[in-house]
């Protein structure tokens, strides 16, 4: 109940509540407020629902542990975005190192997934959405991220520029290119 009320507080109020008291409810409110943003970001980098869940958890643990270092004048979304991208890249790196060992256990993973509902089965009836997400994943990173941050997250070009390191003019071009390519991909697949 209190957590629900806490989500209605401003970012700074939630951060202060967590930093001053270590309050679990404040942590929950913080996570609930940004979980979709972080999960979507991580998912775009990893293209795997299970991995994205694990990494999202890691992102929030890291963010909460460092919340006192967050400069309140900056945007919490761009701060979380940077952590999400770094954690995703680290995860990919680790995964590629251990992929040699994992290949040996593919059969056992298949058996497990036959017995338990996998995330894609849970998303049955959402073919359009999944097709769109896979089209988005086919875009070059800068175009994909510009599109997602602008269209889904509503960040300004200046904010996107600060995290992607591209000029505002370049971002506009990226955005439009992304729109064109996504239209092509979706039309082709139909």
């Amino acid at each position, binding site marked *: 109940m209190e957590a629900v009320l806490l989500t209605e507080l401003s970012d700074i109020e939630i951060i202060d509540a967590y930093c001053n008291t270590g309050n*679990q409810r404040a942590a929950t409110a913080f996570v609930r407020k940004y979980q*979709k943003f972080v*999960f979507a970001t991580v998912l775009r980098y990893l293209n795997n629902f299970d991995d994205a869940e694990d990494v999202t958890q*890691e992102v929030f643990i890291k963010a*909460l542990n460092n919340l006192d270092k967050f400069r309140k004048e900056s945007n919490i979304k761009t701060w979380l975005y940077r952590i999400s991208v770094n954690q995703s890249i680290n995860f990919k790196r680790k995964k590629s190192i251990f992929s040699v060992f994992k290949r040996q256990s593919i059969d056992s993973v298949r058996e497990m997934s036959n017995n338990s509902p996998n995330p894609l089965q849970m998303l049955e009836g959402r073919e359009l959405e999944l097709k769109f*997400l896979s089209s988005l994943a086919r875009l070059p990173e800068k175009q994909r991220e510009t599109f997602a941050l602008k269209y889904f997250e509503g960040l300004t070009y200046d904010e996107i520029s600060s995290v992607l390191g591209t000029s505002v003019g370049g971002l506009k071009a990226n955005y439009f290119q992304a729109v064109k390519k996504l*239209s092509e991909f*979706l039309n082709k697949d139909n």
Partner: protein
Amino acid sequence: MNTDHNLPDYNKMQKLLPDYVLGEINAEDKIFFENNLPLFPDLVKEVNDGLSLFARIEAMDIDGILKQQTKNISVRVIDGLDKQRAKSKFNFVSRVLFPSVGIVAVVIVFFMFNVGGNNLFNTKKHDSTKVNINQNSDNTSITNNANNVEEKVFDEKTIEKHGNELEKIYNDSPELFNGSTISPSTVFDEIENLNDEQFEEIIKELKNEKINS
């Protein structure tokens, strides 16, 4: 319908196209763009593709997928934080506390065996396992643990001083030691068990021998 791409308006239209599709065009440019758009079929197609993409995305329930996938995240994060805290306590004990206690113990043991100039690694002159050394102001008191009786014997400086004296006599007159049970080596072996008077006796004896001879 004008499809001549060399017209100056086409370039302007191309520049305005992204802003129009992305909804970032100002009112004046919007009127200009919409009035001229029917003249350029290729641009019409691009505009329609772009606008239809946004309409399709609007119809999708991307938010529903994200909601479904993140419903347990907050619980997992809180669990993760709790586990991390428990782990960091264990890490403090295993990485800081145990090694610190170990180092302190080693230092204590090291000093216990090294007080008063006695050294574990230098057992030639002194058998430090035999005696506990209490350093007094005059540096000459050694307590013998085995008998639990205090007896005065020499400290390192005194032994060195008398040893040098004995060695000098031996070097000056080696013949004095011929057939004698006393030699620098035997005296060194016994020197820890001698007291001042006994040692002075030996020196006197040797000096007398030297004078007599």
